[in-house]
């Protein structure tokens, strides 16, 4: 074997005093880290295969296992970090593009953590959500610009189709293919139970999930996989995906080995063929082209469903959003650079795009300045990690948020960031039947419902603290936010004052 330049990233620490050799770790590790050695009479581990997904740790009945980051060190310096050195070695070994999963992990500023929320004192008293009504219901879609009456003076209903959300949180697009059948089932059932929506992503809609149509957003992306009339009609809204926060400017690639019979049928492509989503939509080169697709989809569904256009947060996001708002879209979804993915080139994931907080503030301000904010709802995603992030997003101007990474964490994801291998030990980002089985949707659905219910409680508490009793009164209410540790430019873009001001 050639010289190995890389030392394993993690170490498997087993407390042999506690290990009863039940071999659950061995049976549960798709990476084949653990093994029972009959001669030694104990469990042994090959840590070079470990991705630190914690499946073995979570299932060990005697808590005999833990995974630690190796303290083996390169001769690092401020410029040539261990990560930079490792990546050069990996590329020198393989000659390939580095692939990664989930969101941008680099230590860029997280603006959510530099925003503080207000609370009432003395005047404008705070509200106790346990005693008084607190409205978190949200409607997404274009709002009527004015009142219209017919010749007899009767009101004309000029309301366009709306999405009604019990909580301002939806599950963002993850395709059937990138995630498993059981992960989709969990999301669909949770969306129904919570009175919100999940998103099919670009993989079509499995026939079993048409029953959740009233809580489903169907996606049309550049590959147009699984798009047909019944699919469009099944959903409550249609989303056109122009870009994704984790990999703006590039398409997607579902490897042929994941395209089994079910996925082949759902995506309407031959079994075993690679599903390649082109980087652009080949029929969209301008806002006018986008408008054509928006209205084609509206025409196909008889103007009964709102159309969402999803874009990645990039440099000119405000101008792009303004164009999208004028294209006839009812809702704009903006995805920040921390947004997750099943696989993206590492360099793109880590270096392309901008923070969602800045993008959201810029878009909301631009649409307001142009007087077209009411024409569209704004939904943001790209790492909303908690109800505090949610409150800050709404105060910065979002109508609702999309969560996906948080939802997957609720399902058991441990952010090991190796989705691209297809060996997800938690049954999420895999199509291997024995692994998919590990995610029981009865449990998955309950955990998602628990998470969003908990966030809803916290949202109400924080709104109550501010003396606000409806989401409408919080939306775009940037006076409820103050910045900390931000420079003047950042404060200007976010449109917030500094703490103490």
């Amino acid at each position, binding site marked *: 074997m050639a010289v190995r330049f890389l030392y394993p990233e993690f170490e498997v620490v087993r407390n042999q005093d506690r290990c009863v050799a039940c071999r659950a770790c061995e049976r549960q590790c798709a990476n084949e880290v653990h093994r029972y050695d009959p001669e030694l009479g104990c469990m042994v581990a090959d840590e070079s295969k470990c991705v630190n997904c914690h499946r073995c740790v979570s*299932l060990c009945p005697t808590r005999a296992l833990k995974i630690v980051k190796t303290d083996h060190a390169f001769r690092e310096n401020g410029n040539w970090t261990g990560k930079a050195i490792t990546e050069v070695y990996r590329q020198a070994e393989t000659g390939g593009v580095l692939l990664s999963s989930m969101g941008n992990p680099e230590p860029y500023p997280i603006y959510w953590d530099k925003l503080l929320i207000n609370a009432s004192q003395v005047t404008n008293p705070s509200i106790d959500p346990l005693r008084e009504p607190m409205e978190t219901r949200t409607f997404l879609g274009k709002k009527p610009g004015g009142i219209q009456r017919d010749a007899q003076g009767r009101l004309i209903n000029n309301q366009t189709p709306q999405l009604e959300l019990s909580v301002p949180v939806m599950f963002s697009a993850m395709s059937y293919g990138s995630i498993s059948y059981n992960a989709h089932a969990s999301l669909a059932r949770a969306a129904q139970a919570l009175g919100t929506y999940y998103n099919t992503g670009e993989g079509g809609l499995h026939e079993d999930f048409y029953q959740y149509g009233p809580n489903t957003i169907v996606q049309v992306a550049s590959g147009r996989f699984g798009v047909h009339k019944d699919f469009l009609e099944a959903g409550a809204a249609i989303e056109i995906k122009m870009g994704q926060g984790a990999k703006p400017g590039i398409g997607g690639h579902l490897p042929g080995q994941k395209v089994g019979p079910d996925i082949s049928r759902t995506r309407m492509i031959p079994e075993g063929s690679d599903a390649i989503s082109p980087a652009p939509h080949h029929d969209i080169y301008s806002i006018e082209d986008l408008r054509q697709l928006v209205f084609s989809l509206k025409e196909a569904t008889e103007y009964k469903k709102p159309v969402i256009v999803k874009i990645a947060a990039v440099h000119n996001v405000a101008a792009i959003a303004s164009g999208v708002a004028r294209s006839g879209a009812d809702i704009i979804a903006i995805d920040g650079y921390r947004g997750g993915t099943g696989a993206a080139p590492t360099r793109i994931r880590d270096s392309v795009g901008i923070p969602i907080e800045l993008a959201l503030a810029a878009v909301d301000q631009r649409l307001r300045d142009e007087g077209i904010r009411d024409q569209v709802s704004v939904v943001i995603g790209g790492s909303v990690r908690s109800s505090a992030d949610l409150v800050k997003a709404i105060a910065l101007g979002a109508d609702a948020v999309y969560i996906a990474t948080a939802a997957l964490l609720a399902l058991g994801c441990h952010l090991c960031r190796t989705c691209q291998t297809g060996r997800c030990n938690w049954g999420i980002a895999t199509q291997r*039947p024995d692994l998919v*089985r590990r995610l029981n949707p*009865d449990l998955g659905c309950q955990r998602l419902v628990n998470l969003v219910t908990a966030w809803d409680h916290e949202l109400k508490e924080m709104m109550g603290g501010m003396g606000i009793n409806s989401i409408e009164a919080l939306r775009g209410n940037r006076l409820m936010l103050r910045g900390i540790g931000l420079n003047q430019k950042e404060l200007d873009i976010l449109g917030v004052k500094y703490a103490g001001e």
Partner: protein
Amino acid sequence: MKRVYVNEKWCLGCHLCEYYCAFANSGQSSMVKALKGRRIAPRIQIEERNNISFAVSCRHCTDPICVKSCISGALSIVDGAVFIDSDKCVGCYTCILTCPYGALTHSEQGAVQKCELCKTNEFGVPMCVQGCPNQAIVYEER
């Protein structure tokens, strides 16, 4: 009556139910003390072949053939569940031969052992169910 049921669709074949069973019936205070360095003889056992696996334990049949076949009166039905009195068991193994599920086995303590739904140990609720990571084993009324 609540019984232990198996949803084979969700069984991962991790065998943890066997270890929780062996621990629950060991009388020890921790799993390590109970099972470290021992071969376990659980009352629930995973059957597996290829990609299919499921746990098998006493069904607590409404008309249990093991109770009928017991020559010493060691097996009895209490509130629908089948229990064994090891003081009465003479070790003829007729119950083991007659049980169509293979749910009774030889015991190192008494002559025969079987699942008693953890009603006779300190836990009181079936530990295989508590220990199953995927709700493949449930304890419910059907």
